[in-house]
């Protein structure tokens, strides 16, 4: 506990500094040696943010501080931090979904991974963090990294990816790329990387605009896991967002959920043109193809008979910085697929 006092003091000092002189100090400059590219005066001016409080999945979070020691849980959080150029400020990452994609800030391989599974409170606090960025709300629980209120008391800022809020009121309804950009900008506010966030959002928006979605109006199933009862992307989450942008029509699109379990009979009734396979280390795309081919019912789906598959890596299946690349990737793969009736 005594080890935390210095970081508590540091956090308080930062906090007070930020509160005491709004607009005077550039939070980014206060953190010497950060990986943020040196800002031009205009950007520096706009980069100073007045501290405000946002409502993050029901917990108030102060923006405008610049956490120095961030722990990232789940790939979506870690990759966003990397893309914002905050790699030097990430003291540890945990519960990742695969190898980290190199972000705008540097080589993702330099981030130390402290745990393959959900880390416990002690493991996280041993890193003396001043902020935790969680990709799932459940990461911040008593049997995980700790309860949010408790961590706040210890001077650790906690931030949950807003697209993953558990309470229905906070869930994006539906998730769209516009909402994603807002989330990126909000993360920039929270972690003191406003300029990079703006730049990132602008970059992603431009890239998204440049992708020509598939014009054929193909129907698709986003198959995430499960063999007897498939767990699939439904109408209001990231899968829907990505498929829509790629020009695919989700056969489970009118179910008001992010993901859901359906019956193979329902899938057979729709007979989707294309099946999007989520590729995870614990459940590969090849495995799913085998499941589809092995099941005498699904073997008759036209997409299975003609091998019309599109593969998406798991980390790209949750809303985050990879989502736009995922769209581009899907469109590319679709270009190679022909559909005859």
């Amino acid at each position, binding site marked *: 506990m005594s080890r935390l006092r210095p970081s508590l003091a540091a956090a308080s000092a930062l906090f007070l500094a930020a509160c005491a002189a709004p607009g005077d100090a550039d939070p980014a400059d206060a953190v010497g040696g950060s990986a943020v590219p040196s800002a031009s005066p205009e950007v520096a001016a706009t980069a100073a943010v007045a501290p405000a409080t946002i409502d993050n999945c029901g917990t108030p979070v102060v923006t405008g501080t610049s956490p120095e020691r961030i722990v990232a849980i789940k790939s979506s959080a870690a990759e966003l931090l990397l893309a914002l150029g905050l790699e030097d400020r990430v003291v540890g990452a945990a519960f990742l*979904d695969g190898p980290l994609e190199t972000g705008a800030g540097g080589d993702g391989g330099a981030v130390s991974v402290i745990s393959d*599974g959900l880390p416990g409170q002690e493991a996280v606090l041993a890193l003396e963090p001043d902020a935790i960025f969680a990709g799932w709300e459940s990461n911040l629980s008593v049997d995980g990294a700790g309860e949010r209120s408790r961590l706040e008391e210890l001077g650790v800022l906690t931030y949950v990816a807003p697209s993953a809020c558990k309470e229905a009121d906070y869930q994006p309804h539906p998730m769209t790329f516009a909402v994603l950009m807002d989330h990126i900008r909000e993360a920039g506010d929270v972690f003191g990387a406003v300029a990079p966030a703006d730049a990132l959002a602008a970059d992603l928006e431009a890239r998204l605009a440049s992708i020509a979605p598939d014009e054929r109006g193909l129907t698709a199933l986003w198959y*995430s*896991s*499960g*063999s*007897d*009862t498939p*767990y699939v992307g439904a109408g209001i989450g990231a899968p829907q967002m990505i498929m829509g942008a790629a020009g695919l029509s989700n056969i*489970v699109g009118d*179910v008001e959920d992010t*993901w*859901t*379990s*359906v*019956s*193979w*009979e*329902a*899938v*057979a*009734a729709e*007979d989707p043109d294309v099946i999007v396979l989520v590729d*995870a*280390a*614990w*459940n*590969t795309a090849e*495995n*799913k193809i*085998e*499941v589809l081919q*092995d*099941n*005498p*019912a*699904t*073997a*008759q*789906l*036209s997409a299975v008979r003609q091998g019309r598959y599109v593969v998406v890596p*798991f980390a790209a299946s949750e809303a985050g910085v990879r989502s736009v690349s995922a769209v581009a990737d899907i469109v590319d793969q679709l270009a190679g697929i022909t559909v005859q009736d």
Partner: protein
Amino acid sequence: MAATARSAWGLSAVLALALIASLAAAASIGVAGLSLGTVWQVVADHLGLAAADVSALTDAIVWEIRVPRVLTAAAVGAGLAIAGVVMQALTRNPLADPYLLGLSSGASLGAVGVLLLGLGSAVALSVALPAAAFAGALLALAASLAIARAAGAIGPATVVLAGLAVSQFFAALTSLVIFLTAQGDSYRQVLAWLLGSLAGSTWTTVVVAAAALAVVLPLVVAWASRLDAFALGDTAAQALGFSVRATRLALFVAVSLLTGAMVSASGAIGFVGLILPHLVRGLTGGIHRRLVPAAALGGAVFLVWADTLARTIVDPRELPVGVVTAVIGVPAFVIVLVRARRRRAS
């Protein structure tokens, strides 16, 4: 007495007809919205009676999804009901169910272990999973019997307690395995299995479930009088002329094999084995020669309809069938309890 006997056989006949009608109806109901005619075309085609003019996909929906599913539901429902009847008789305990000897926890451990080991090949999984579930159930049986033996003898009281201990232990192990190995969203598949589901029914599960029934049901029917005698107490039953210990042990093993086979096909579906015996006993009385067949038929009809609800009520989603059996079963059970109490009081 003759009148009761006649009416009880009448009940079995009615239930048998109800089962046939239920199978036909359930096969025609589903989210794919196929017409009755289409469904029967496909069935007739496969039975060699007439050719069907439907797409391969429609054929697959009927013959590879629906028909195996309703048949498996019927077999599993029958098996669980019989297992419940026998367990309740052997332990003289109205709260006994097929999973008394920790069978569902053992099967869950086997299944979860295989699911999370990441066998890679889906084909291997479709064989390994039921086999592991079955093996887990037998392991739990062996452990329960061993503990009961160590506690004194394999009698009604010791067996219930031993089964409870084994159940808790295997459940804890299952949780541990999940905790240590579950990644990403693989826990969903595990959860679905633990809740019990007929979604994975194939012609193989039909054969497995039916075979288990075919082996165990005749034994139970042949020993129906012995099951009746158990109600009198161990000593009185023994004095009627058969070995209570040997009979009890043999029936525990047989019922565990039956339950293990059912669980391997569909996970641990609850409430059927607990409640059907009570519902049917209210109509047939406690003589097992009549109770067992009626319970089997009743269990089959019940599960066929519970499963039909589970797979159609939130189109296109699927409810785990264990949820439906609980929602229907528990109020039914309460009604039975209240009626029994009123009968005793009058």
